[in-house]
């Protein structure tokens, strides 16, 4: 059984870090205020707003130490990554999960943070929260259902997510632990110590800004490495801002994915609200869900 970290109570502390790309302090402000309004205390890691002059929010050592500090600080009940970008691959093997294993806490984020979710799930069997990050907490967005889904999940409320059926869906229902994340990173992790065993699982995938041929290539990699063979279900989120070659690929991202996945019998739901856009529900990574793909509706129930 998956180990689920303790849910949060009012007055608990959330630590915010930037384990990958740089993020200016002012862009984290609305997130901090919202978390405080939800009743949490917020502490900021040294990497938040840390102007380095380059892409990263700190050297590998600074980012590693900051994250390690949040993992080891017993006051901190959840670690929210303010943004992704690129950088977790560089530090994941340096992180020590000894204390975290004894006292699990929620690790929150998506995109590059997929590496942590997959790593924690595969190595420690500990659940985490695949969810929007600081940039999604813009003023005026605090009440949108995607941001609110973070609050509900942290409070331990069970949510049923619903969306409209997509014409390419494969109907059916499946039960399994929910894993997945950003396609490019799931592909990148294949063969590494953070790789996912997808057998019997509900796999969700999303991506942004990829060339169509590369989406095709990554789905072939998933298929050829056996990742798609024995799923309980497949959830295809947003594949947005796709790029194309000079001679067009000739298919949309969803057509590409459908071509590869249509041979399987398990339920497949396209256009589920998990993405780099606003439509991005908080999903408990590693926790059991039931996916129902019906004629007109799709539901994902914890």
């Amino acid at each position, binding site marked *: 059984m998956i180990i689920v970290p303790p849910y949060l109570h009012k007055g608990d502390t959330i630590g915010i870090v930037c384990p990958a790309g740089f993020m200016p302090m002012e862009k984290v402000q609305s997130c901090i205020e919202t978390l405080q309004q939800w009743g949490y205390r917020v502490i900021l890691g040294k990497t938040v707003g840390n102007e*380095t*002059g*380059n*892409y*990263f929010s700190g050297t590998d050592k600074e980012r590693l130490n900051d994250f390690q500090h949040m993992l080891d600080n017993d006051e901190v009940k959840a670690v929210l990554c303010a943004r992704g970008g*690129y950088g977790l*691959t*560089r530090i994941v*093997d340096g992180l020590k999960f000894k204390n975290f294993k004894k006292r699990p806490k929620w690790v929150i984020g998506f995109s590059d943070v997929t590496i942590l979710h997959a790593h924690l799930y595969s190595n420690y069997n500990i659940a985490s929260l695949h969810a929007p990050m600081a940039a999604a907490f813009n003023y005026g967005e605090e009440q949108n259902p995607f941001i609110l889904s973070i609050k509900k999940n942290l409070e331990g409320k069970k949510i049923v997510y619903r969306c409209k059926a997509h014409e390419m869906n494969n109907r059916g229902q499946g039960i399994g632990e929910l894993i997945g994340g950003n396609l490019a990173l799931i*592909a*990148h992790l*294949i*063969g*590494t*110590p*953070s*790789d996912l065993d997808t057998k019997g699982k509900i796999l969700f995938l999303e991506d942004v800004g990829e060339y169509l*041929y590369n989406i*095709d*290539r*990554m789905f*072939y*990699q998933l298929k*050829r*490495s*056996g*990742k798609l063979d024995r799923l309980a279900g497949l959830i295809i989120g947003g594949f947005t801002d796709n790029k194309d*070659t000079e*001679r*067009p*690929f*000739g*298919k949309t991202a969803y057509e590409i994915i459908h071509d590869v996945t249509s041979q399987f019998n398990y339920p497949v739901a396209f256009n589920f609200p998990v993405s780099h856009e606003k439509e991005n529900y908080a999903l408990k990574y590693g926790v059991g869900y039931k996916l129902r793909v019906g004629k007109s509706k799709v539901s994902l129930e914890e």
Partner: protein
Amino acid sequence: MPEDLQPAISSIENWGLKVKIGSSIGKRENTFGGTDEERRKDFQTMLNDPEIKAIMCARGGYGIIRFIDMLDFNYFQKHPKWIIGFSDITVLHSHINRNFGIASIHSKMCNSFPSDINNAEQVQVKSIESIRKAMMGREMTYSGSTNAFNRSGNGVGILVGGNLKTLETLSGTKSDLNTTNKILFVEDIGEYLYSIDRMFWNLKRTGKLSGLKGLIVGGFKIKPDDPGEDFGKSLFDIVLEKVKKYSYPVCFDFPVGHQKENYALKCGVRHNLIVSTSGSSLVEIN
């Protein structure tokens, strides 16, 4: 179009060889040279044709992964022939090395033969000429320039490698390279530094860098960082930090890649890599 192949055909015929054009040449299906089935069938026909002694891919791009699992290598295994190309053809090199242990030639393709070989740049002519030498059984020797970041050493092993991105996307599949005791060469084009960094992490985290006899870094045409997104590390930093725990030779700027100077390398064949302060050399040994 077949006329785009004319420089390649003329050169190859000048070498005293006969040329047979596959049915996928000139075909078009969006970005591809024909549908998956048309491309598969064409390749399969060449694999099974006893008259064909070598198959040169006219160009790379993207597409072999879509039909490689439908190819039947039975005849090829009994009667090996040279498969020639690079970039996307890395899929084939890796697949036949891993599964059949059959050598192949990583080299320029038809789209790189100069239309006027007499007025072409020397390095391009030499690169094309190296395909002939490799095909015709010459023992190959190569030299790389000096580079302050090279790591000296001497290693012997079977040469494997190719396009780095392509190698990464073979991870976990049945075409994935086993690099233990091998000399690995990699090259790439059009990738951001962060992406190159991530790919080298993939090599490292999948165990592909730990048992090498040598590492050859070919051409890397790097996509410049977006404004304000300065990665802050060079290609040299990226590579050397991944291999600092190991002691095998490492050389940079080796003449292999998406560039004019791209010599034919025999994948699957034993080589000796020697890197010193005066440059690097790679010598085929049998």
